[in-house]
């Protein structure tokens, strides 16, 4: 066991927890203003989009809008499936099917 690594892990844990509890610590004392609540309504939409889009358009770190980008093609299939069915499992299975087919069988 490496003491330096353990210290790094605990430092990371403390830093991460601070980001998770921070908002509550602030609002527990000050209360949340109404305008902020109205703005925060859009956080999930903005946040989910920011998580998804780079994974599909820049899977290797650069913008790839060609048919060689299996994540983009799978993303289009998945978006369509999600829109039509709202079924998570079906969306994952179809999307991953596209990726595996393209990566392992064709390319």
């Amino acid at each position: 066991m490496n003491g330096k690594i353990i210290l790094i892990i605990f430092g990371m844990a403390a830093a991460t927890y601070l980001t998770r509890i921070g908002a509550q610590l602030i609002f527990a004392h000050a209360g949340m203003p109404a305008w902020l609540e109205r703005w925060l309504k859009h956080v999930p939409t903005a946040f989910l989009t920011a998580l998804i889009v780079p994974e599909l358009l820049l899977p290797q770190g650069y913008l790839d809008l060609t048919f060689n980008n299996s994540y983009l093609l799978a993303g289009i299939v998945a978006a369509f499936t999600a829109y039509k069915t709202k079924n998570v499992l079906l969306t994952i299975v179809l999307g991953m099917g596209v990726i595996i087919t393209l990566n392992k069988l064709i390319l």
Partner: protein
Amino acid sequence: MEKNKTCRRLKTSIWKEVLQDCLPMSAGLIPFGLTCGIMGRTAGLSTFEITLMSAAVFAGASQFIAIGMLSSGVASWGLIVLTTFLVNLRHLLMGAYMAPYFLKLPRPLQYLLAFGMVDESYALTVSRIERKGYDVNYNLGVSSLIYIIWLLATFLGALFYQSIPDPLEWGIDFALPATFMVLLIPRLANRTALIVSLVSALCAVWGTLYLPGSWYIIVAAVAATLVGGIMERSKPNER
């Protein structure tokens, strides 16, 4: 008596809901956790150390970055901890969104739920809030299940790191964006939401290209939320 029964039925149905929502997501989470264990071992951490990291930090992206820094020799405590803090700043936004629900709960529960607030549990809980309202048991269930899966997957990945082929090479990591997509698309029902999403997408692409680390998530979320807030104010009746 009667009340007790209803109560129990309610609890079982919550657990069923938790399992139903978490299982598809774990298809993406398990390979991610396995990879974390494998990468940790490859970078020279012991099985105990990398499992401890998953147990104490519980934040995938920042763990990957820390492992990368450790293996490239940048092992300064301050730099790794600061990077972790910056990568995880997005939790402040998520926490601010959850605060009105959390602040009504007893303190110990608040602190526990904050620890379990990760991308996945946040996304599921928010979607549950909009469909049926907030439920502490649901939130707690989702967070603990995701925590257990993350811990076990890291441990197994570290344990068998030589015999598992890299699961990310197969594109199995697509399961997470696919899950998020099912949560996102029903939200895009009005013009404001569509524009918020579009702004976020553009900023995220720009940020991935030109900003270091995970800053693109924070920049995109803040910019898109601001645009949404401004549109909201000029159109007070749209919901």
